């Protein structure tokens, strides 16, 4: 049991931050994103916990599916409540803050948040999920070419937004 606990904690420490980022990108609310990560983690662990075939992409796929299920079930009222609560909390940062590069980080974060949902999804999976285009294509149910071109298009878009200030 202790070994089991150490195993999942290892995955959680390693992939938890980027999974939470992906879930937040999917839902927009921290509290709901945490629920989604929890549910996805349990789903994957119940199915694959005993085997050695656990991969990062399984967790990302589970987060995406769970987020879609949540989006279907959550009522509009609940969304409004969440939004008000989250705004009051001021808990909108997606990334850790480092004082010396705060301005640059804020600019990048803003640029990411202005991307479309599809673009955000692909950039999160590629940069912080460190997944291959093949894995991303399987998770998003798009072709390999679509995944790759969407990513490049997103980078181009980001470049336009932030290049004058960063480079």
């Amino acid at each position, binding site marked *: 049991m202790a070994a089991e606990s150490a195993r999942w904690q290892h995955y959680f420490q390693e992939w938890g931050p980027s999974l939470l*980022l992906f879930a937040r990108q999917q839902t927009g609310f921290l509290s709901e994103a945490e629920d989604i990560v929890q549910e996805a983690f349990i789903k994957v662990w119940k199915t694959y916990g005993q085997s050695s075939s656990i*991969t990062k992409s399984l967790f990302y796929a589970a987060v995406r599916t769970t987020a879609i299920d949540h989006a279907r079930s959550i009522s509009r009222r609940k969304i409004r409540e969440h939004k008000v609560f989250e705004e009051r909390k001021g808990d909108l940062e997606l*990334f850790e803050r480092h004082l010396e590069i705060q301005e640059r980080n804020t600019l990048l974060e803003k640029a990411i948040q202005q991307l479309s949902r599809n673009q955000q999804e692909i950039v999160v999976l590629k940069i912080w999920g460190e997944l291959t285009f*093949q*894995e991303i294509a399987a998770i998003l149910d798009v072709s390999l070419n679509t995944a790759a071109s969407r990513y490049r298009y997103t980078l181009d878009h980001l470049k336009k937004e932030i290049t004058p200030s960063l480079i």
Partner: protein
Amino acid sequence: MKHLDEEIEKELARLKPVAPSDALQAKIESALEETQPKDGLSFPRFWPMIALATAACLIFVFAISITRTSKEANSNIKETPAESFQPVASNSFEPPKAEQRLLEAIDDGIVFTEGREPVRKLRYKFVDTLTVVDKNDGSVFTMEIPREEILFVPITLL
């Protein structure tokens, strides 16, 4: 151009996503503990006994229902007069026209099932229309039967 791409990728990768809270980790830990089978009551150890008990119950219920049915059947036998029943000639109907209409195809996404590989769930909603014409009086019967097919396509996540 490629240099610029790499620069931006590096800039982005330098951003570290906010780590999940300790509370979330604790919640997952307790949820995972709850899903662990309890000692002495684990399903895999007991399932042969449960299966045997269920089979015994089913045989018992089946035996009772057969006995009752045969008794009721014996007591309810009646003569049916042949005149009261006028069968419709089976060849009086034109061969039916059948039509299958796809109303909606829904992709429910990837589904995780315990102990199995993930699958993609696809739902197809159809309406089957069956039309029969009676040759004798020209009457037309149309039946519309809604139908839903659920397809599970195995997927591989590398």
